[in-house]
């Protein structure tokens, strides 16, 4: 019986490995799709798509394995969302892209920043996070989008969101919209700035989850407007565990606790625990990766010391190991934005990161060895993976 089980597992792993992978690269000047072979060794570049458009996120719907959404705008035109159901061969624009309600203090969506496919039991439902901060929901696979009034119109949330001058240099971001795989009514999202919030009733009511999170020196933790989560990830193998890269450190949260634990304190002191992306292992909730950034002095937002490296924890943040084999050893002044580092679902997890210098780096062995699979692209804003076939 045991032998039979092992065979089945191997067969299942082979089947998964036989699926082809696409790396979806969103940049400041368009999108590219990198088609990989089953071994993730050779890559065919398809693009540019939307040359000249600012693409903040391209995401494949894992529920149907074919619907791609791309969040787009240009320097001059308003924001929109494009859809493809043939792996980018053709694209069709959303009939009603995310837009705030008329008269809502005059807010207009500058760009859609984040796209999240909803729960497996709710096909065609998606969430979008925008700048200025707002949440939008589509129930028709991204064709039309409706404002999420419990957040967008709530005066307390509006106060936490601040103005266009608050938050990141290119506008405050609504991000990390997470749907619990066990329950579509259980949601989280992050606001840069504005904190981390949770709903257990499909977004009708929300509770802030910020205990244990540090804020910039001189400000009060009780003021949610100064909380700045950069990226929050839920562990697929244990949805009660979340990791977060914050403006002020790296954290872990084990529910039902509401107390974040600053696991970044265990990072090497000379590197620190500032950064943007956060990646979690698909099968092991003790394993997570970060990509530290120089957050000293004026926040150079470069790799510390010009030596890019990922860091991994294999024990839920008790210790961290540097992963830089193959990456530039010096004078590497790029960094990785919050949506620009991800992984695939392989048994031996592949990691992918897109740099501000337009390179895509990949590791087939969970970060032990890195290789560059694309270069000379525009500044990369987001990298996602999708399995097809």
């Amino acid at each position, binding site marked *: 019986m045991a032998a039979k089980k092992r065979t089945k597992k191997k067969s299942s792993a082979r089947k998964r490995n036989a699926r082809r992978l696409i790396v979806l690269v969103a940049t400041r000047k368009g999108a590219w799709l990198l088609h990989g072979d089953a071994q993730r060794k050779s890559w065919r570049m398809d693009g540019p798509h939307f040359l000249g458009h600012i693409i903040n996120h391209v995401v494949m719907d894992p529920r149907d394995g074919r619907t791609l959404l791309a969040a787009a705008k240009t320097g*001059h*035109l308003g924001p929109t969302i494009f859809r493809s159901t043939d792996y980018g061969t053709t694209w069709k624009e959303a009939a009603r892209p995310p837009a705030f309600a008329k008269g809502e203090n005059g807010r207009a969506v500058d760009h859609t920043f984040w796209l999240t496919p909803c729960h497996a039991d709710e096909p065609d439902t998606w969430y979008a996070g925008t700048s200025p901060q707002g949440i939008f929901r589509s129930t028709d696979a991204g064709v039309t989008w409706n404002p999420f009034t419990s957040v967008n119109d709530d005066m307390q949330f509006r106060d936490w969101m601040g103005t266009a001058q608050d938050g990141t240099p290119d506008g405050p971001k609504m991000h990390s919209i997470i749907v619990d795989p066990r329950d579509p009514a259980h949601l989280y999202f992050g606001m840069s700035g504005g904190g981390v919030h949770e709903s257990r009733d499909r977004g009708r009511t929300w509770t802030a989850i910020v205990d244990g999170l540090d804020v910039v020196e001189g400000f009060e933790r009780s003021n949610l407007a100064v909380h700045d989560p950069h990226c929050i990830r839920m562990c697929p193998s244990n949805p009660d565990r979340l990791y977060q890269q914050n403006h002020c450190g790296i954290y872990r949260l084990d529910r039902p606790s509401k107390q974040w634990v600053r696991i970044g304190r265990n990072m090497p002191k000379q590197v620190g625990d500032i950064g943007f992306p956060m990646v979690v292992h698909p099968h092991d909730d003790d394993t997570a990766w970060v990509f530290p950034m120089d957050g000293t002095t004026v926040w150079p937002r470069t790799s510390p010391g010009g030596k890019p490296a990922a860091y991994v924890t294999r024990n839920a943040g008790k210790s961290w190991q540097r992963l830089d084999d193959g990456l530039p050893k010096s004078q590497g002044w790029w960094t990785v934005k919050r949506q620009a580092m991800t992984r695939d679902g392989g048994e031996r997890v592949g990691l992918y990161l897109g740099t501000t210098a337009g390179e895509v780096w990949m590791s087939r062995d969970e970060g032990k060895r890195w290789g560059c699979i694309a270069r000379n692209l525009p500044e990369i804003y987001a990298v996602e993976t999708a399995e097809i076939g």
Partner: protein
Amino acid sequence: MKVLIPAPLRSYTGAREVEAAGATLAGVLADLDRRYPGIRFRMIDEQERMRRHMRFFINGEQVFDTASRLRPTDSVQIVQALSGG
């Protein structure tokens, strides 16, 4: 009336110059959106404001209000402001 379309919006129209009808600029933009779905939102935001880098001219004279009136013999020029890098 004739409407001049800037290069960034020609993916919608497929042409540099198209026909549209309306008694006001808003009417012309609504007609353009009927003919080329999605084009209006790229120029006018959800609060009915002209987007920051879009410029609208009637017979070569810049207008700042979508309520600006039009005669059938007028022409509309939509231009992308030069900016950025």
